[in-house]
């Protein structure tokens, strides 16, 4: 006891590096390609013509156009996340609880398979499906249900459809990973104690899967908010989101300060969401053996 107590401080001091060395390569990479560029961009947004100024942020805040793009970005991301959740949860539940063990591997393969294709190709596929002379319009015309092709592309619905399609594996896999660790006998216990199938879901399955739901939603939301290809291809020029705006300022208009400003606003909002999300999780984790904390 006393010997162990005497040894502890020394061991702890040496332990910092001993425990964290596996993080070093990834940390170095992140510093170089993520943190450093960000630090370079930040002053850019406060500088116009070599002079320090808040003009960029004033124009972002003062111009209704930017607010509409920010609003649309959030609206599309939130909607896509919710649709992913509603569609993805049952798939995750099926994957973990219902599918025969022999077929589980195949269902996982089907869920993951789309990730092997680039988002550009997968977004282009929607052009083929939703276009003026696309599969949907041709089909409806052929059946005589419509007289003229519907305008299915270049609106928010098309963007949400594309985003949901691309992001849903992340939602399914994240929820499934958490649900896999929820002991099935807990659900049986709820049934045993008089809860019906729906009551069991609401009071046991869903609350215990909440860390996965939050993590999956956060992941999908962040990916949606920063996605460029899908909104650009399916939204058209009139449905701009923040990522498109940033790209435009940097690469087409060459207004680097404005591009940097919008990028910083996007980052600030994202960090705010991470912070809020962590608060929600750590509060929930008290009752659930810290499963929530393990997610980040």
């Amino acid at each position, binding site marked *: 006891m006393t010997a162990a107590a005497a040894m502890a401080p020394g061991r702890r001091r040496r332990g910092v590096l001993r425990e964290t060395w596996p993080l070093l390569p990834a940390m170095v990479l992140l510093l170089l390609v993520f943190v450093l560029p960000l630090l370079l961009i930040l002053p850019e947004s406060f500088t116009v013509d070599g002079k320090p100024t808040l003009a960029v942020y004033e124009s972002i805040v003062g111009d209704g156009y930017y607010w509409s793009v920010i609003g649309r970005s959030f609206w599309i991301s939130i909607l896509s996340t919710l649709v992913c959740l509603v569609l993805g949860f049952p798939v995750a539940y099926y994957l973990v609880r219902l599918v025969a063990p022999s077929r589980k591997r195949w269902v996982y393969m089907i869920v993951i398979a789309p990730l092997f294709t680039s988002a550009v190709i997968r977004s282009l596929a929607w052009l083929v499906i939703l276009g003026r002379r696309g599969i949907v319009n041709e089909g409806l015309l052929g059946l005589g249900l419509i007289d003229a092709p519907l305008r299915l592309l270049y609106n928010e619905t098309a963007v949400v459809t594309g985003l949901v399609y691309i992001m849903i594996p992340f939602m399914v896999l994240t929820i499934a990973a958490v649900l896999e660790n929820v002991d099935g*006998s807990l659900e049986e216990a*709820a*049934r*045993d*104690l*008089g*809860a019906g199938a729906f009551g069991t879901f609401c009071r046991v399955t869903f609350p215990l899967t909440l860390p996965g739901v939050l993590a999956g939603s956060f992941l999908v939301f962040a990916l949606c908010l920063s996605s460029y290809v899908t909104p650009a291809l399916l939204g058209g020029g009139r449905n701009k989101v923040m990522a498109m705006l940033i790209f435009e300022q940097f690469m087409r208009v060459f207004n680097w300060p404005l591009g940097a400003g919008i990028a910083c606003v996007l980052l600030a909002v994202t960090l705010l969401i991470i912070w809020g999300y962590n608060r929600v999780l750590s509060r929930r984790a008290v009752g659930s053996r810290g499963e929530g904390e393990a997610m980040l």
Partner: protein
Amino acid sequence: MPQRGEMSETIVRLEGVSKRYGAADAVRDVSLVVRRGEFVSLLGPSGCGKSTILRMIGGFEQPDAGAIEIDGADVVDVPPNRRPVNLVFQSYALFPHLSVFDNVAFGLRRKRLPRSEVGERTRRFLALAGLESFGDRYPAQLSGGQQQRVALARALVNQPKVLLLDEPLGALDLKLRKRMQVELKQLQREVGISFIYVTHDQDEALALSDRIAVMNQGTILQYDAGREIYDRPRTEFVANFLGEANVLRGRVLATGPAGIVEIAGKSMPATVDGARPGDAASVAIRPESLELRAEGADVLPCVVEDRVFLGSSFVVYLRTAAGEPLMLRGFDRRQLDGLRTGEAVGVTWRADLAHVVAP
């Protein structure tokens, strides 16, 4: 069909119940009657089908054939949440996101009882389980024994007609398990509810049960009071699974309560029924029923192979002239001191303590 209500003594009845998983029989043509207020154990090795029977009574598995009645009502098509039984899971299955109080109140709230009654009954059963001051804690903050008590309280608070327990003490260490056995038996007497208890631990089954169903390979081999099974095992498996037994091969010479079986050329006494003179037979004798005797017509010559001191008792390992191993348990230490390894001795037993068993 037995009458419903107070008149019937039977609370659970299984009739010809079978369950297959793929090509394997988990449970084969099992019939079982549990009386009101009775403590019944299903005892057998893992994979013998005892848990499957429990899960079928609880409603988590569907039998492929047969009938299950609880308090006179056929429940085969009734979902678990509408059966008047509760199950204590081996893993306890406490809800980790709910406090101890909310865990115990879970069943009462599903019945939509008034708030005051939920609170009153939950507190009463928390007290019964010795957990009055633990209501605000979460399961992860409790010890194994405390979690076990929460699981019991959570099931009993619903006042089920039958409580099903699936190896509920399996996860506890030996000392705590012994103490929980005593508590469990007291609790059962107090609440007066029938318990069906699944275990692979023979001591636990003997200590707790009014009746024991010894199972193997999906069937019930013997269903009776523990003492009855111990004294008169019907098969070799039962003799070996419930307690220890010496099983010797021989040939029946005379039948009846004072029968004779020829073993290694000696005419040994045994209770013989269900066999005729001339039949080959296996005789089961408990280690403590063997007596050392110098010589005689009914004395089996043996050689002492080993002697083991066990504190309150001792065990002597013997081998017969035919090469069959025997185990003798004794309590008189002077007897042990008089024995040497390699020494030739003779053993015998009383006819009422040796039984012909089916293979």
